[in-house]
């Protein structure tokens, strides 16, 4: 795996992501500055980490989506390269047009920082092959704008094509209104692109990879990527 973690002014989860990638793949990712024109040669995975890029000015992720390095990220995605966007990274992917929809203010207006449950909808993606479809994992969220919205046609397309990869659910895996923490359409917590090579998700799997923290439920995502890139 040759991963590149993009660092914007205001990113703050890049080290968590780097730790999770190194722990699961044994390889240290490159940290790439937002003003760079190119990704390191041979990059096979780009990660957009969480944080508050550009202070969330204008709209979350809006300025970062137009940063210099994003042309290289777009080109990487167009080549079929893997891209993972977590939290602010998901917001940036939507603003950059690499994923459809937009993340709006949480319906309850509150910033939510706690552990939640996610249902893994499919295991046939490079991001989830180490999970079983239908598995319930516990990972943290930390966001004020995670309420996924898209027009009805786009949502129908996402659902019809099976591109919803994670949904908010309760501990038993039931997708209930109460478990939908931020009011997202269809409790959507993570989606993939049409070719399933670009994943955006609001929760933070990178924070549940080390047994010292008490949960390793997020580890499967990074192990999936390591495995997908090893066999590729």
């Amino acid at each position, binding site marked *: 795996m040759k991963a590149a973690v993009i660092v914007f002014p205001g990113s703050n989860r890049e080290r968590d992501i780097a730790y999770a990638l190194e722990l699961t793949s044994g390889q240290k990712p490159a940290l790439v500055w937002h003003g760079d024109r190119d990704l390191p040669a041979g990059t096979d995975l780009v990660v957009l980490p969480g944080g508050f890029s550009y202070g969330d000015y204008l709209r979350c992720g809006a300025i970062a989506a137009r940063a210099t390095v994003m042309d290289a990220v777009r080109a990487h995605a167009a080549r079929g390269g893997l891209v993972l966007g977590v939290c602010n990274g998901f917001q940036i992917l939507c603003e950059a047009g690499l994923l459809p929809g937009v993340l709006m203010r949480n319906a309850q207006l509150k910033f939510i920082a706690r552990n939640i449950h996610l249902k893994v909808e499919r295991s046939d993606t490079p991001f989830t092959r180490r999970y079983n479809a239908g598995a319930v994992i516990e990972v943290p969220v930390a966001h004020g704008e995670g*309420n996924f919205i898209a027009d009805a046609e786009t949502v129908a397309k996402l659902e019809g094509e099976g591109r919803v990869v994670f949904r908010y659910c309760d501990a038993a895996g039931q997708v209930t209104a109460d478990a939908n923490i931020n009011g997202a359409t269809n409790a959507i917590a993570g989606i993939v692109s049409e070719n399933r090579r670009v994943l955006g998700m609001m929760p933070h799997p990178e924070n549940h990879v080390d047994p010292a923290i008490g949960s390793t439920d997020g580890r499967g995502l990074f192990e999936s990527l390591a495995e997908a890139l090893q066999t590729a």
Partner: protein
Amino acid sequence: MKARVTVTLKTGVLDPQGKAIEGALKSLGVEGIGSVRQGKVFDLEIADMDRAAAEAAIKAACEKLLANTVVENYRIDIA
């Protein structure tokens, strides 16, 4: 030349901030306000160019950055 761009949420898009403001107005005892939708205003100074070129430049600014047309509309007023 000056221009003002007003960005508003499209009809039907939930606006939790507007709802909160609506609630605050009610609790302040301000009567008669049915609902509130929050938006953004951008005041732009435009370089010397003809009106058509200015309109095109501002439209590009709106489409490329100022508005997210998935959920927002924009209006351009040139003074």
